[in-house]
């Protein structure tokens, strides 16, 4: 069963169409990237998934049904704008918000202790939320998001404002959750994180889906016919190479349409050259993003 299925949703605010006929699905056990520039409609899409906003048309199903009290309990949501009860203690905040996911207070407290330990936040257990730094508050909010062992996690800009140590901690925990079979939706404009973590993506711009599918497949679709090369000695002429661009530390060889990278590699090996780096040039997600968003605008 699909974790999320969004079918032709449309949402307008006053005279602006925020989400325009958007469709996608997310399977269980996959990490899905929802990417797009600021104001693309990512958060509005998520809010419709969470039933916080009602779509003007189209529908959203979570685990095969409309979002209801039972399915809300299977859901963990980390909104873009973080917020917790400032005057409440960390442990009380976590336990209260977990209890709203139908977890009894005793189990919630036990699980909270485990997660506080795992994230190195145990010392802050009895502090008030307002006493925490922004990054620490974010970790607590992440704990709130996963404490009830949700089957679907929706994380809106989860790495924003986190230091590198906590970013790595979060990435590790997300990978574990995916490996446990949970569906994870990452909404972000940090392309490197998506590239590193996600299996599939949906790129949206001005409310419309512009790229959707397997990340590897999308990247290969945008792959140019060129290789990146770092060799010792003179390169000399190589059959099928129509040009070369010298970069710092490597050279990019442009191949003609009849030549594949393997032929170039064989040629170099046959010549007995010492090869430090040989890579089929693939554009980064960031480059694809810039290209697509630039093209559409």
């Amino acid at each position: 069963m699909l974790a999320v299925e969004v079918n032709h949703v449309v949402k307008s605010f006053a005279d602006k169409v925020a989400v325009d006929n958007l469709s996608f699905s997310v399977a269980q056990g996959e990490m899905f990237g929802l990417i797009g520039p600021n104001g693309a409609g990512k958060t509005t899409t998520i809010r419709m998934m969470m039933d916080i906003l009602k779509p003007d048309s189209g529908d959203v199903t979570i685990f095969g049904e409309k979002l209801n009290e039972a399915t809300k309990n299977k859901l963990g949501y980390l909104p873009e704008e973080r917020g917790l009860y400032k005057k409440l203690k960390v442990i009380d905040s976590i336990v209260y918000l977990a209890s709203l996911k139908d977890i009894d207070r005793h189990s919630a407290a036990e699980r909270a202790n485990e997660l506080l330990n795992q994230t190195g936040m145990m010392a802050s257990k009895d502090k008030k939320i307002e006493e925490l730094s922004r990054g620490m508050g974010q970790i607590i909010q992440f704990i709130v998001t996963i404490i009830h062992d949700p089957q679907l996690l929706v994380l809106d800009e989860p790495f924003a404002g986190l230091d590198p140590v906590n970013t790595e901690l979060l990435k590790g925990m997300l990978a574990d959750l995916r490996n446990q079979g949970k569906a994870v939706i990452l909404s972000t404009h940090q392309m490197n994180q998506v590239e590193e973590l996600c299996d599939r993506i949906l790129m949206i711009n001005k409310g419309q889906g512009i790229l959707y599918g397997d990340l590897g497949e999308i990247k290969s679709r945008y792959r140019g016919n060129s290789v990146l090369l770092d060799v010792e000695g003179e390169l000399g002429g190589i059959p099928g190479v129509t040009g070369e661009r010298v970069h710092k530390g490597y050279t990019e060889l442009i191949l003609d349409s009849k030549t594949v990278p393997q032929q170039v590699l064989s040629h170099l090996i046959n010549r007995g050259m010492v090869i430090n780096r040989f890579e089929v040039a693939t554009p980064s997600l960031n480059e694809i993003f810039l290209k697509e968003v630039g093209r559409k605008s």
Partner: protein
Amino acid sequence: MNKTLLIFRHEFLHAIKRKGFIILTIIVPVLALIGIGVFQLVSNDEPPLVETVTIGYVDEAGGFDQYTTQGYIELVRFDMPSDATAALINGDVAEYFVIPSGYLSAGIINRYTLERQLETPPAITTGIKNFLTSNMLADKVPPETVYRIEAPLELVTTRLTETGEIATEQGGYGNVIIPAMFSLLLALSLQASTVYLVQGLGDEKESRLIEVLLSSVSPRQLLTGKVLGLGAAGLVQVVVWLASLPLLLNLASSTIGGFFGTIQLPANFLVLGIVYFLLGYSLFAALSAGVGAISPSVREGQQLSMIYAMLVYVPLWFASFLFIFPDSPIWTVLTILPITAPIAVMLRLGVTGLAAWELAASLTVLVLSIILVMFLAIRAFRVYLLMYGKRPAWGEIIRNLRSG
């Protein structure tokens, strides 16, 4: 546990742990107890001696030479005004007055003092008046008649029921004092509950926590849990006050007696006190939910809520007017107007009581208003719960409420 109950529990516990709530709840009975205690301490001491005041007089009319002791006023006769003035300057007398020769026809008495006063102290006026009366009637009527002329009546009123029996409530200030005090406390409690609700909603909107909450519960569950939780906290406060009243009154009338012995709680006062708190609170909660929904920040929410939170005090502003004109139609209006009804009814219960039709109309209008405002508040909550930053224009709010 049901999610509405969970929110209710959280809001209730959060509210009753607030310092402001605890202080406001216990300060009323505690202050009353302190008052009674202080009275007991003071009353155990010997009563203070009243100092005798010596007042001079010059009798130019003649015949005013008896009854020179009037209570604590001692009257000393002088032959000439100049002698009296000298005694005044020397401090032998506190003041003096002259009974001119034409007193009987004109009735004028000239009083001389070193003090700057707004008016003559009533005790002095009474002392001089009784001195003059006693001397003028001396040997003409018996002393009892003189005394009765000076103090002709002590009015004792008894209120009868329509069947001619003595009514249980005898009226008077003893009946007014508790409803008036309770009205003020009720207004404070309603205002405090309003502030907590607007602040709570505003905080959750401002901190964006509302999105996390709504990913777990529905807007209806959230709003219902909050309103009931804060309402229950307010009710605890009102019940503590009401429950402490009979106890404190017993204590006060047995130790202080006098006026406190005359205080009666009007029949139905406790029941109507709770009913009007619940209804008043529901109305204010619905208004506050609506205001919390359309306000982009706690501050603006509180400013908007002050408008109706202040209106609750209107009957108290008019309270003295009620004592003078208890049958004015203004009272009927304030009784039926839903925002002013809780306090107006409490006040009137103590002063004049109110007609059954007025009570029925007041309750009906209040209940209908609650239903209407709650309906609009839930609509506003759904439309505006995610709106941060700028408050929408009133025209836009009305359009959105219409379209839902």
